[in-house]
């Protein structure tokens, strides 16, 4: 057995029908018991590299491969599927798409059956794997009844049963709430300690970086950087050369000239040592404490005289007449111009509430006043692909206005307006489902904005999306709002507290079947019990914001605020 978990030499890979290789001259090696983060922009070749590492290229994905990948010293090209599976395992983005059995036990057994493990040995190995991911006693549970986090842990257990030396994870956190993501990363950390090499590609850098030993940076298919997490300067230079943003925390630390720490606690300690914490506390004493976050105010900011768009009184909803309530006693109002975030754990009924507000479901009890005009409540669903059904982007954007009975001239005006706002003008004649992931999200949002809604409901805009794309969409919406005569109300569900801080001026916390709180982002971030109930965790940037008592929410404004207070 080789002392290396994997060795990649001069790897080139070109997909069929393409002239340019997706991967070019990739060289690196992976030692056991290490954690490697693969970073890069969308389309940089991260997923292709991970598939090559797991041996699926060239066995499952066709294309032209040059160079070689060695797992335990053996070339993946000559290893059978079973031998590959014993060496490297792959976790994908959506657990739902990876689970093939109906019970937890059968799901874990599947891999062992494929490897030809004798039936009498499978039972103990299933129990052992489930124990490693804290799913003991789940054997007979239906896979349909598991939460998102439990499903991803089940996928991990199914892979661990094969006892691979290398675990490759392709954006495994994208569907998980912060608590479930932290638990998943904790399990990976234990596996690393037990000697497994972990390779992970993930957009949520703030959450993954504290665990990483090393970062590989891909840019246009090339390895643009390969740095240890401790080589701060090399790491920053590599990120910069790949036009990639290092995590917000790293940018904050760099701007203040503080060395980047593996965890946020150490960084806060370093900031304290350099006097930033005390200086900010002094500065905080001299300014008026304000709950309202100092985000850029727009024409649509809320005010007491704004018309109410929604009024919910003691709403309750259940799917089955004799089933349990998804939630009950939900009462709130939403005024024009308000930006409200809806937070809560996976399965707390956030999507159900948005669907109900959109008019797709009726409450089981309680009263709801909502805009009744067709198209007045625009809903962007969690999977924007399911909102795109026309042949071209132009038809997609025109669909809503046409259904509203608008004249062709007015329809064309709205199409060109929203296309411009969401940077889709050049793509108007393209098929919407042929666009990139971020472009599809923008097309879905534009199709909803073309209805000229009074309220925009947005279901988990960050799930499975590149943060850059989400930021772009949210900025486009903000920009679009400025030019509206009638302020638009917005209610979006999210697990991402940075989104809450940046884009919301109010937060509804839905958990345990009730609306636990109707509060401000600042109050939520400061309330440990509320965060725990909503299975939310303060992202490192929010921890920094809290420690330094800052008012700003985004990293650029936070840096400015500190530099202003501590010149």
């Amino acid at each position, binding site marked *: 057995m080789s002392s290396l978990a994997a060795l990649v030499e001069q790897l080139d890979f070109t997909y069929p029908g393409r002239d340019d290789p997706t991967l070019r001259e990739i060289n690196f090696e992976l030692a056991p018991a290490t954690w490697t983060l693969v970073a890069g922009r969308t389309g940089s070749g991260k997923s292709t590299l991970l598939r090559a590492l797991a041996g699926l290229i060239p066995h499952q994905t066709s294309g032209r491969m040059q160079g070689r990948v060695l797992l335990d010293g053996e070339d993946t090209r000559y290893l059978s599927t079973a031998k590959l599976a014993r060496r490297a395992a792959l976790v994908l983005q959506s657990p739902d798409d990876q689970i093939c059995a109906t019970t937890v036990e059968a799901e874990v057994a599947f891999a062992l059956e494929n490897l030809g493990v004798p039936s009498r040995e499978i039972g103990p190995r299933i129990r052992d794997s489930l124990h490693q991911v804290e799913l003991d006693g789940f054997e007979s549970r239906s896979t349909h009844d598991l939460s998102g986090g439990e499903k991803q842990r089940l996928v991990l257990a199914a892979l661990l049963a094969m006892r691979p030396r290398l675990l490759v994870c392709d954006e495994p956190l994208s569907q998980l709430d912060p608590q479930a993501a932290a638990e998943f990363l904790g399990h990976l950390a234990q596996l690393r300690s037990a000697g497994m090499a972990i390779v992970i590609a993930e957009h949520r850098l703030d959450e993954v970086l504290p665990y990483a030993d090393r970062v590989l940076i891909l840019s246009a298919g090339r390895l643009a950087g390969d740095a240890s997490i401790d080589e701060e300067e090399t790491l920053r230079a590599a990120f910069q050369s790949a036009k990639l943003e290092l995590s917000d925390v790293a940018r904050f630390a760099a701007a203040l000239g503080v060395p980047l720490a593996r965890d946020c606690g150490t960084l806060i300690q370093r900031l304290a040592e350099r006097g930033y914490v005390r200086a900010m506390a002094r500065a905080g004493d001299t300014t008026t404490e304000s709950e309202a976050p100092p985000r850029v105010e727009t024409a649509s900011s809320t005010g007491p005289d704004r018309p109410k768009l929604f009024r919910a009184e003691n709403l309750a909803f259940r799917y089955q007449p004799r089933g349990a309530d998804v939630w009950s006693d939900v009462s709130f109002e939403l005024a024009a111009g308000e930006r409200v975030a809806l937070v809560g754990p996976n399965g707390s009924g956030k999507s159900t509430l948005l669907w109900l507000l959109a008019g797709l479901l009726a409450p089981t009890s309680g009263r709801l006043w909502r805009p*009744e005009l067709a198209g007045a409540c625009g809903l962007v669903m969690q999977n924007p692909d399911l909102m795109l059904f026309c042949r071209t982007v132009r038809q997609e954007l025109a669909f809503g206005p046409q259904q509203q009975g608008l004249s062709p001239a007015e329809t064309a005006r709205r199409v060109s307006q929203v296309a411009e706002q969401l940077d889709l003008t050049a793509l108007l004649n393209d098929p919407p489902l042929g666009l990139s992931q971020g472009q599809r999200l923008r097309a879905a949002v534009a199709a909803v904005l073309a209805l000229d809604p009074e309220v925009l409901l947005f279901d988990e805009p960050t799930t499975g999306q590149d943060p850059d794309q989400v930021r772009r969409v949210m900025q486009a919406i903000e920009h679009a709002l400025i030019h509206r005569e009638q302020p638009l109300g917005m209610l979006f569900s999210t697990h991402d507290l940075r989104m809450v801080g940046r884009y919301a001026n109010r937060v509804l916390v839905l958990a345990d079947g009730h609306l636990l709180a109707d509060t401000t982002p600042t109050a939520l971030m400061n309330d440990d019990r509320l965060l725990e109930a909503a299975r939310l965790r303060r992202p490192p940037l929010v921890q920094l914001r809290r420690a330094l008592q800052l008012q700003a929410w985004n990293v650029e404004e936070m840096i400015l605020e500190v530099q202003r207070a501590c010149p």
Partner: protein
Amino acid sequence: MSLNNVAIELPRVQPAGWLRKLDPRLKLVWLMWMSTLSVVVDSTAALAALFGVAVVAVLGLRLRPRGWLLIGGLLLLTAWGTLLSQGLFYARQPRTPLFTLIPSVQWGEVELPALQFYREGALYGLKQSLRILAVTLAGLCVCLSTGPERLLAALTRLKVPVVVAYMSVAALRFLPLILVETATIRRARRLRGYGQDRWGRRRRAGWWTALKMEFALLLPVTLSLMRRSESLATSVASRGFDPSQKRTFYPELRLRAGECLLLIVLATTWAGLVATKSLYWIYLAEIYYAPWARGLYDFARRWL
């Protein structure tokens, strides 16, 4: 009941009865037994008996009320549709009108015939619906009482090529998701004003528009399905699934004594009934007559 409800309900039927405990190979053999016999037999009594067997099997699922509602709805709709269509449009002779739905109309020189409901048509419709329902219920019983992984094991043991077996099982696994996604796209369409007037009230689209819109659903559903299938294929390949390699099964499939006996009964009855009916067809077609088989001809005429 909406499509979405069916989709949510289907994987949650969770039958807990004795049928779930049976060896999946036995269930597949029984499904084949039901499918062939429902084509071979033609008498109302025999078809009713097959239907009865299927109903007993459904009872073995110990469904929740919601499951019964789903299956009851399916039974009613199928029986109603077949009875009505055959009763109204039965063209063979003799036929006895039971009642007239629309009397004949004289239109100039042309006389449009009356639309009548025929007894023989209704009986024929009843037979057809018994045929369809017996097989449908048997298929549902097998699918609902057997996890995809057990079905895969059984199909593989019955020498069905692993690729075909795995495709069938993956289709079963994804069926609820396809239904959910189709319902979601319909909702997205509705939210953008389709099927509503400008005040948000329901409005019926013209049949051509409705047809076009239904076809438009195919693209996003198919693409989404392809993406999911690709992920699943990647996932199972990463877990060592290789159709060309021998695999083990957990728990191992082992036929118990009672199941072996049942298998013998199924095989014997199947062979006996198919042979008897074949002999009878040969006799009817005047190809071969065997005096010793007169009792069998009589049995086939009365009961098969």
